[in-house]
């Protein structure tokens, strides 16, 4: 057995011996769905335990609390976590966005101050990009940050702040110059998939709006910052709206220079997509895919027989399998430029559209497998899997809407991949 295979066995053994017992409440599906304190503490304790065992942040520098090991080790550890279906880590914004960003372009002081807490879960991070009135149009952010001596004074509001009430820090996009000189962001800063801002227009009349944006790493526990929970369509909490009322933060919270906010936000989003590497590792959500739906079909009944024997259901299941496999294969094919030369952006720019819509339809289908029990909801004693499926279906809209709804994604594919005219 080579070193990596030995390591794989070591991780698997550790995970099996140390995985937390199944709680008596339904766990959230992702960091966006953490709605109760017991859910939060369960997940944070798990992150801390895995970090202390050395299986998280394995590639990050030892000077800041990381493991300093090659990427292959973290990839194996993460793959084993997925295989064994252990819980995800709640500090997703820190581990996948803020952390990699700080390691890439932060100052030495920022790295020493922020990275260890991100890994241990002691310092939960949240994200302040979207605003209540701007929808998908991130570039139109109106939250103001005005320099006043050694501070910035922040006014405005952000919305869809996951873990807003638990977070110690926020990555914040705010406007430092309401009327910047015309400029054009570099093409390299263009969003290219994932949870990207959705304007699809990187120049022309809108470019001025990008130029006045700045990027901050701010503390949440300061006077003038308050959060209000948002109740989702599931009835659960998980997001907050964050209000800034003359909130003062030190000028040292600015990342980069004033006016570089858009470029840094775009860089942040590239980490989310996972294309550029640098993430701490681990799972970001409860893995719930076609394999689980097939297993559900085995347990469900139709006309006195297992639902999986029903020809129509079999056809539907295989459709989802072919789609899911097609998307996995798209990721793989994307590694070969010669197989993507016609439209190199086609796979990355259609990624969110393909995956989020697939999941929404898959979970909707999972409800139909349950027969009459598909009508039950979380909390009902007879709900299949505790109501996991109907909750997953409703929460799936987080991905088909958040980060630019599917209809905007289809515009992006039509315009930027196929070259069709704008609306």
């Amino acid at each position, binding site marked *: 057995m080579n070193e990596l295979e030995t390591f794989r066995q070591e991780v698997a053994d550790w995970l099996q011996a140390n995985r937390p017992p199944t709680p008596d409440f339904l766990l959230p599906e992702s960091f966006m769905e953490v709605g109760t304190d017991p859910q939060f503490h369960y997940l944070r304790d798990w992150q801390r335990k895995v970090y202390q065992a050395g299986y998280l942040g394995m590639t990050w520098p030892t000077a800041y609390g990381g493991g300093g090991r090659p990427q292959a080790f973290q990839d194996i550890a*993460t*793959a084993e976590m*997925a*295989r064994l*279906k252990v819980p*995800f880590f709640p500090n*997703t914004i820190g581990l*996948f966005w803020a952390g990699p960003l700080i390691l890439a372009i932060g100052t030495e002081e920022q790295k020493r101050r922020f990275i260890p807490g991100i890994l241990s879960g002691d310092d939960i991070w949240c994200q302040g990009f979207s605003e209540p009135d701007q929808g998908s149009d991130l570039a139109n952010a109106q939250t103001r940050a005005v320099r006043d001596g050694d501070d910035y004074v922040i006014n405005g509001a952000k919305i869809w702040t996951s873990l807003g009430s638990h977070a110690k820090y926020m990555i914040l996009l705010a406007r430092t110059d309401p009327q910047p000189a015309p400029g054009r962001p570099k093409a390299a800063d263009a969003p290219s998939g*994932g949870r990207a801002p959705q304007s699809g227009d990187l120049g022309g009349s809108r470019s001025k709006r990008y130029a006045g944006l700045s990027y901050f790493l701010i503390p949440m526990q300061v006077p003038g910052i308050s959060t209000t929970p948002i109740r989702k369509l599931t009835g659960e909490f998980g997001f907050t709206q964050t209000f800034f009322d003359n909130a003062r933060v030190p000028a040292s919270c600015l990342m980069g220079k004033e006016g570089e906010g858009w470029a840094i936000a775009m860089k942040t989003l590239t980490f*989310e*997509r*996972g294309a550029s590497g640098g993430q701490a590792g681990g799972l*970001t*959500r409860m*893995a719930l*895919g076609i*394999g689980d739906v097939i297993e559900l*079909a085995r347990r469900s009944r139709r006309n006195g027989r297992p639902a*999986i024997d029903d020809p129509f259901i*079999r*056809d539907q*299941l*295989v*459709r989802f*399998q*072919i*789609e*899911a*496999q*097609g998307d*996995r*294969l*798209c*990721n*793989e*094919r994307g*590694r070969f430029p*010669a*197989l993507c030369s*016609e*439209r190199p952006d*086609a*796979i990355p720019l*259609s990624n969110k*559209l393909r*995956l989020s819509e697939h999941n929404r339809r898959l979970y909707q289908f999972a409800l139909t497998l349950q027969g009459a029990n598909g009508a039950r909801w979380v909390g009902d004693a007879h709900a299949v899997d505790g109501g996991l499926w109907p909750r997953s279906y409703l929460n799936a809209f987080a991905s088909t809407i958040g980060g630019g709804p599917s*209809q905007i*994604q*289809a*515009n992006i*594919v*039509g*315009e930027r*991949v*196929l*070259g*069709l*005219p*704008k*609306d």
Partner: protein
Amino acid sequence: MSDPTLSPLSTRINFSDEQAMLQDSAVAFCREHSPSLTVRGLLTSEAGFDRGLWQEITQLGWNGIAVPERFGGSGLSLGHTAVIAEPMGRHLLATPFASTQLAIQGLLAGGSQAQQAAWLPRLAGGGIASVALFEDDGDWDLTRLQARASVVGGSATLQGNKTLVTDGAVADVLLVSVALDGAPALAVLPTAGLPSGTLQRETIIDETRRCHRLLLDGLTLPAEALITGDAALAALRAIHRAGLLLASAEAAGGIAGVLDVVVDYLNTRSAFGRKIGSYQGLKHPAADMLVGLERTRSHVAHAATLLVDAADAGTGALAEADIALRMAKAEAGDSFVFASDRAVQFHGGFGFTYDCDAQLYLRRALWLQPWFGDAAHQRQQLADALLAA
């Protein structure tokens, strides 16, 4: 944020520099030699293809790509033909390439030494071959056969009919499936000297293709011309694999081709003072066409990879390839029909005319969908393989 998805299915894709060069050459060749006017010019011709162009293709070595070097070929595998079939599909380039590749795979998997030595060098050198598998009931199960052979002494007599024999009239040799003592067999039937009327032209939806009905009653051939037993089953499976791969690759090209037609029209035509491509009602389905194209291409690249690997590793690796091939055919079949159906619709009144190229692609899609099993059939077969407890 992509967590590793748990799936027992491999996602292996390989693409060598050699394949990339072959692809570049095929893409350029098909674009140059098969513009729409040329395609339309061939629709009413008897043979349906240009003999001169077939000679050029032969000289490029494409016909012999999967033929072993000892028989005058390149010694590559079926997996390598995908990069040729895709641009052919994209430009609706009509040749007996696919028909011939199917027969080559059948001979390689089940043919005797003598049959291989007799036919493979000839096919690598520009000869044409095809397969006669389908029957009047339209069943996709290639082992349920009404046509049959009976052997008396050293001579086999054939009975029954085969249909949808592609390029039957121009083929030098046909691999004909028949029942022999209740089991599938393949007759290696040279066409030279067949009685006139043995092959009758059929009318099919894809006017770029030629199909024939083969009347077997009374035909005789030496008993050693029959491939029987396990060899026959192996040959049928090999032909089936080739059919799935080539149809899927051709469909991938077809989606790309019809998407070009659509995008060009949406960027040109105006209605109500705007380019029609600016309307989301057209733009969003166009995005769906692209998604179908990308997924299809990915499935095809994967299936081709597994076939290349299996050629090196032996037949044990083929079970994995069979799943990949059926997935590719299902995705390709449905995505191509969707794309070309929408292409007709998006051209409006022009789309309803014979002059609009969208119909060429829709007819091609409607030909490829049922060839070797439509998407629903593939899913049914996949369900048995993938959903077993």
